[in-house]
Every structure is written in C-alpha cells, then in structure tokens.
C-alpha cells in the first residue's frame, strides 16, 4: 500500500514537471500574440521574461527550436540588454549554422557594437544566471544589466542537475573508452591482415622463382 502511494506521488510529480514546460510554451504563445497586437514596452518585457524562462529550461534538456534563440535575442536587444542579446544571437548561430547570415545582419542592425563578437563560449555560459525576472527597460536599470553580465560567468547548478551532469560525463567517458578499444582492435586486425597478405605474396613470389629455375 505504501509503495503504491509513493509511486503515485512520484508519477504525479513527474507529470507536473512535464506540464510546466507546456504551460511556459502556452504562456509565451499568448504573450507573443499580445505583443503582436500591441507592441507596448510592458508586453515586450513580459514576452522577454517568458522566452527567457522557457529557453533556459529547454537548453538544459536539448536543442531549442529554430529561431527561438534569435527571437529572444531580439527582445533583449530592444530592451537594451546588448551583451545578453549577443550571447543568444551567437547561440542561434551555434545551434543552427544556416542562420549565421541573418543573425549577423540583425546584430548589425540592433547591436552593432557586438557585430564582430562571435564567441563560441556562448554555449558554456551559464544560462540560468540570466535573471529573467529582472528584464526591464535598460535605460532605467543599466546597473542591473551589468550585474547580469557578471553573474553569467558563475556556474550555479542544483544537486539533481550536478548528479545528472556527472552521470552524463561518466557515460560519455565510457563511450569514448569503448570506442578507443574498438579502434585499437581494428588496428591490430588490419595489421595482422596486412602481415598475412605480405606472407602470401612472398610465398607466391618464391614459388614462381622456383618454377623459373626449374
């Protein structure tokens, strides 16, 4: 009975976490529709926050959809968060190299000071540190923008995320070791095969020379 109760609680928690990303997507869709109908500053800020929280979750689990990072970068650029916008533009180009050309053009239009900054370290930047709650009009809170930029260099992970990361690292290490052993075996096999073939050819050549002598 206790086991069944624990199982149902775990399943319920899993279902709730699954629903939250869908809720976030629904929220960003609703906010996008609101912004497209009324492009006020308040709607832009809300949309940017929704994109930020949705993307920081998505990127930890996998790859974002085409255009998502660029759209978030556009909202950040319009809110005068140029450094963060540059990071997200670079992420879009990192995940989808086919987007490089229009991303560069948008950077030229919106954040020209970062036009040549294509640092690939964007992928390693801590995305959870982008405090989506503090996204406001950059002209009023330049200090907040600087704090966000400094916080982006620190790594903050929860215990669960640390365990997951450790498991992923161990798995990747095991896979690399297995592939190394496989490559070594293939090399040894190829060497043996080459030796056998060389010996065969030598024997053949010797037979022919013996025949000629006769």
């Amino acid at each position: 009975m206790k086991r069944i109760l624990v199982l149902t609680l775990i399943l319920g928690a899993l279902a709730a976490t699954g629903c939250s990303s869908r809720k976030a997507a629904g929220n960003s869709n609703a906010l996008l529709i609101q912004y497209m109908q009324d492009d006020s500053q308040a709607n832009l800020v809300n949309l940017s926050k929704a994109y930020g929280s949705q993307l920081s979750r998505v990127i930890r689990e996998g790859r974002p959809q085409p255009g998502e990072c660029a759209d978030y970068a556009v909202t950040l650029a319009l809110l005068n968060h140029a450094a963060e916008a540059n990071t997200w533009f670079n992420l879009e180009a990192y995940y989808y190299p086919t987007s490089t050309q229009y991303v560069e053009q948008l950077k030229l239009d919106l954040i020209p000071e970062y036009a040549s900054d294509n640092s690939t370290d964007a992928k390693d930047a801590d995305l959870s540190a982008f405090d989506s709650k503090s996204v406001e009009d950059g002209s009023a809170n330049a200090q907040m923008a600087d704090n966000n930029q400094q916080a982006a260099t620190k790594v903050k992970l929860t215990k669960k995320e640390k365990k997951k990361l450790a498991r992923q690292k161990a798995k990747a290490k095991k896979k690399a070791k297995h592939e190394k052993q496989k490559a070594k075996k293939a090399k040894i096999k190829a060497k043996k095969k080459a030796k056998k073939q060389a010996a065969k050819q030598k024997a053949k050549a010797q037979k022919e020379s013996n025949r000629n002598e006769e």
Partner: protein
Amino acid sequence: MKTTTMKLRISILMVILAATVLSSCKSERKLTYYSDIYAEKPTTIYVAPINDRAARKPDKYEKDKAYNAEVNAASSYFLKTISQPLISQGYYVIGPLAAAQIAKNETRTYRQLVKTDLNSYSADYGVDAILFTTIHRWKEGNGTWTVYIEYVLRSTKTYAELMHTWVEATKVIFTDMKKDPVPMRADRLFAKRLDISVGAAERCILVNSVNNVVLKDLPISSSRRQFETDQHLGSNSAYLRVTYNETGEIESEPMSMEAFEDACFTK
C-alpha cells in the same frame, strides 16, 4: 455472345470508375507539383508579414470590439503557428520577431514584393525562399465559420513560384437546441491556455489546422536524410477545401478555381 459483351461493358465501367476514383484523391505526384523545390532545394524560409485583408481596424469598426479581437487574434496566431509544420518538414524558419525586424528594413509594399526581385533577401539574410500569405476573408453563416487563405512560396534566387495554394477552410460550430454556439472542450482549454476568448480560440484552431494541411504537404527539406523519399506521394491540389468538423477531424478535398473565386470574392 451477349454474356461476353456484358462482361466487356462491365469491365470498361470498372476501369472508368477506378480512374475517376484515383484521379479525385490527389491531383499530382509531389515530384511533379513541387518539381522546383526538388530542383532548388531551399532550406531557409522567411515568412513575410501577413497580408491580412480581413483585418478589423478598431477605428473603422468601433462597435464590434469582440469580433475585431477574435479576427485579429487569429491573424496573429496564424503567423505564430505557420513555422511549426515547416520545421517538422526540416526547414529552418526565421522566428516571428526576427522576421518582423527584417520586415522593418523593407520599403516595398506587399504587392510590389510579390512581383519584384527578391535577390536581396538571399544576399543579405541567406534566405532561400519567402512564404507570402494572404487572409482574404472571414465568413459566418449556416453554422460554420469559413476563412479564405492564399499561400505563395517564392524562391529568392530564381524567383520561381515553388508553391501556390488557395484554401477555403471551414469550421463547424456546434450549436444547442436554441441554435446558440456551444464551444467544444478543446476550444475552451485552448482559450484558457492562450488567455483569449473562446471565439478567438476557435478561429485560431482553424487557421492552425489550415497551416498543417497546406505546409506539411511540402516535400521534406534537403537538410534531412529523407529528402526525395516522398516524391512518389500525392500532393495537395492548388485549390483546396478544408473542413474541421464537430468531432475535431480535419478533411481536405480539391475544389475548382471557379468555386473558390465565387465563394471568396463575391458577396
């Protein structure tokens, strides 16, 4: 003798029936209908701002606030959901906000864009094709909502029309004994999730269905391994009738150009 002629007649009839059935299902193979897409292999698509000829401007229609909100919300949602079926086919689609920024740099009108050279998009933004969409009209009546939409996909390099589809999409409105509209549970949940009215939600669901029917018919992109494996499949016809019935099922069938123009452009 009589039996042989009878047999011959029956077999001829069967052949004619089979031919009509086969021809009515789908118009052409994808290899023929989308031959330009298979030749040019576009991968990056830019969705141009919607030419919403059915837009309800508040200053013009002051009193119909609810109706205006419904129609305009559907137009916004149409633009938001247009990318998903293209992404599922393997195309890279520029997001709506980035696309809006690109559109700000464009000085040509919609009509001029559709007719003139699009090489600048290929040179400046790396775009292979532009999707132009026009919402011509919304119609209500006989327990249904109907929308008329036109899709044009043009190459930015050769200016060829890669796809041109006209759609008449109808959603059946469920009514009670008093003939008042009764929203389906799915519509109410959708409206709650997007924080819009149920009427707007129903229109949004309809335009989303149309996007799926039209754009998922495009060939799989050349960026996927499955490229060219769907050449033998049938394609949509140029004029399409899509029906979203009470049970939530979507049915599509070809229609004639005359029937479409008669319904869409006449009062």
